[in-house]
């Protein structure tokens, strides 16, 4: 503003007046810079605190799911219970009840006994069955066996529910609390690392529920997604970027790919339902369909990222290769692709991470079913990690709360691992100029 007003001064003593003029402005410029920096810093602090809060609350409520309460029973494998040839037909629940009755002989009456039996998980019978199947010599002996406690007992031991308050409003009744205290005093209750959580599929009983089925479901789905979307996406990107003629058709395709990347994922779920399940008659709730749907969703992301990576390869490299007589294809494969690969891989992994976390399209194709068995292939019914989180979050049992958080932790761990891989691959394949 001033320079128009006083040009003569500037010409008379150019050095002094110039530095004066700049000097006058300088504090204001520095203040602006400081202000800007502080704003930036505040933004980062706010974002970080959200993140810390999120992680804090998830880990805080989820870490306890990695331990599980066990109860020690003294089980007598009475020969009279194993009359039949078929060992599995024996009354194992009866054995569990029997041992509980022996431990607390004073308990009488149907209701009280029922309460007593509910201290241990229904899975205790299966534990016994497995032991006998493995070692039939146990029949006729008495063994001390650690079995899973019921989820309510587990919650009490972990301090997530309390024994206070009116009895009618509590899941655990007064007599049960007394038995638990007794067992505890005898050292017959302890918490251990929760292997079940990592080895079991879903279950209605929280103490038996595990993440394995969902992890495998996600694994199979993502495997299909990766195997389809990476090659198809990269090929499409290479063709569009390097070989396709520049005409209306390719422009239309380009615009549509960009649009597809922004389409809400549930639409892809509907599309998958219509095409793969209704039209092609593929089985519902299976990783193969889930993988196909996620492929549809991930493809545009990969194509866009790969094209950007190809675009960023300097034209001088293409000229160099073409200039000594490399064919178009050799130029692309030998020189352009290696330079674009880090960007392509990053885009792919980011797309895959999105696919791993996406729930909506899987709901549409029935991957939300309650499935106990761990899928062992692409066509077995399965759920996926985010769907499992949704299912558990929706369950009324108190013990599923911590399972939900634990499942979120697993999902986040996978996401972080995938993003770390993306960073690592980029660093590894990046070629310095």
């Amino acid at each position, binding site marked *: 503003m001033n320079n128009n007003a006083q040009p003569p001064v500037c010409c008379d003593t150019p050095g002094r007046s110039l530095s004066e003029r700049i000097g006058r402005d300088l504090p204001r410029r520095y203040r602006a810079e400081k202000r800007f920096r502080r704003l930036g810093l505040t933004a980062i602090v706010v974002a970080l605190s959200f993140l810390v809060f999120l992680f804090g609350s998830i880990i805080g409520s989820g870490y306890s799911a990695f331990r599980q309460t066990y109860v020690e029973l003294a089980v007598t494998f009475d020969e009279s219970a194993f009359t039949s040839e078929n060992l599995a037909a024996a009354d194992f629940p009866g054995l569990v009840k029997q041992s509980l009755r022996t431990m607390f002989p004073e308990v009488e009456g149907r209701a009280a006994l029922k309460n007593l039996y509910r201290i241990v998980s229904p899975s205790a019978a299966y534990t016994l069955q497995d032991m006998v199947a493995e070692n039939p010599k146990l029949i006729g002996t008495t063994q001390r066996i650690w079995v899973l406690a019921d989820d309510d007992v587990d919650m009490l031991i972990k301090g997530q529910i309390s024994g206070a308050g009116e009895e009618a409003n509590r899941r655990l009744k007064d007599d049960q609390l007394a038995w638990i205290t007794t067992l505890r005093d005898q050292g017959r209750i302890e918490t251990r690392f929760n292997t079940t959580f990592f080895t079991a599929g879903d279950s209605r009983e929280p103490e038996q529920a595990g993440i394995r089925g969902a992890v495998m479901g996600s694994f199979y789905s993502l495997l299909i997604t990766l195997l389809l979307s990476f090659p198809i996406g990269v090929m499409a990107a290479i063709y569009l970027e*390097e070989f396709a003629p*520049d005409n209306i058709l390719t422009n239309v395709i380009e615009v549509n790919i960009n649009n597809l990347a922004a389409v809400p994922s549930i639409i892809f779920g509907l599309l998958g339902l219509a095409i793969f399940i209704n039209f092609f008659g593929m089985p519902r709730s299976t990783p193969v369909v889930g993988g196909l749907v996620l492929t549809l969703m991930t493809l545009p992301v990969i194509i866009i990222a790969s094209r950007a990576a190809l*675009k960023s390869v*300097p*034209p*001088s*490299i*293409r*000229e*160099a*290769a*073409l*200039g*000594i*007589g*490399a*064919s178009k294809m*050799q130029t692309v494969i*030998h*020189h352009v692709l290696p*330079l674009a690969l880090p960007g392509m891989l990053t885009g792919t992994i980011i797309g895959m991470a999105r696919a791993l976390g996406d729930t909506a399209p899987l709901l549409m194709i029935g991957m939300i079913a309650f499935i106990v068995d761990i899928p062992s292939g692409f066509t077995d019914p399965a759920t996926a990690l985010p769907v499992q989180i949704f299912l558990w979050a929706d369950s009324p049992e108190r013990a599923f709360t911590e399972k939900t958080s634990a499942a979120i932790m697993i999902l986040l761990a996978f996401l972080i691992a995938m993003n770390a891989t993306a960073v690592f691959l980029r660093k590894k394949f990046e*070629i*310095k*100029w």
Partner: protein
Amino acid sequence: MMVPACHPIATTHFQTANRGISTMFMKLTSGPAGSTRQSTMEGTGFADSRQQEAGAVAQRQTVGESFVADPRMTARDVAVYYGDKCAIRSISIDVGCNEVLAMIGPSGCGKSTFLRCLNRMNDTVPGCRVTGEIRLDGEDIYAPSVDVVPLRARVGMVFQKPNPFPKSIFDNVAYGPKIHGLTRTKAELEEIVETSLSKAGLWEEVKDRLQEPGTGLSGGQQQRLCIARAIAVSPEVILMDEPCSALDPIATARIEDLIAELRLQYSIVIVTHAMQQASRVSQRTAYFHLGDLIEVGPTERVFTNPRHRLTEDYITGRFG
């Protein structure tokens, strides 16, 4: 100037950036009256030269000796269009055997465009059209039956900015022979790499670090590496587009010495904006002006006794 090979975006940008010059073209060719004004953009500020040029523009016929007795490449009536825009017009010139032909002229006059016709690099530019006839050893290189891949092996190219592949020095030189299947054994390949690097005057400097990346060399070394890469496939003609413009004077001097040596085996066409360089390295010089080939002749003669007004203006420094 680096021309993006297959970059729709970059090319559009290019075209808009050059629209100014192209309209200028049209006016220049449409009539002498309009052209005098426009030509001030070229840097001449003198009223008299403008008037003189008006006369000169009217006759844009090439003067001098365009043709040689024993040509390696011949260009007849070559014109190049970028879209509708004519970049060079009716160029007829020969490239002799074992000679260095220098092409000089103000920037934007079409030197690179013409050079890139000689190995059909312009094929990679979308919207670029070449008319006329270019022959290499009597064979029309734009004939439909001609494959550009072997052609580009026979007519090698060195670019303005050194552009080694981001691979090892060895792989840079070995790439051409490998893709063209010139060698059968590893020993043969190693020999080609060594002779090429020696011819490019780089062997002594890099023989102990052939596995290091070519991009780690200095600018001058990189450019010599690019020359070694070009000669590794034993071309007949080497095209160089301002090969020294990104280099310091010492590196430039080395490349110039190298060009003098390479002339004994190859035909070389070099584009340069440094007139001293043209006079130092070349036997014949061609002067381009706004898409026209104005004058061709023995370098000595062109620099000491130019026949065309425009050539004289340029070499006496009245032109950019």
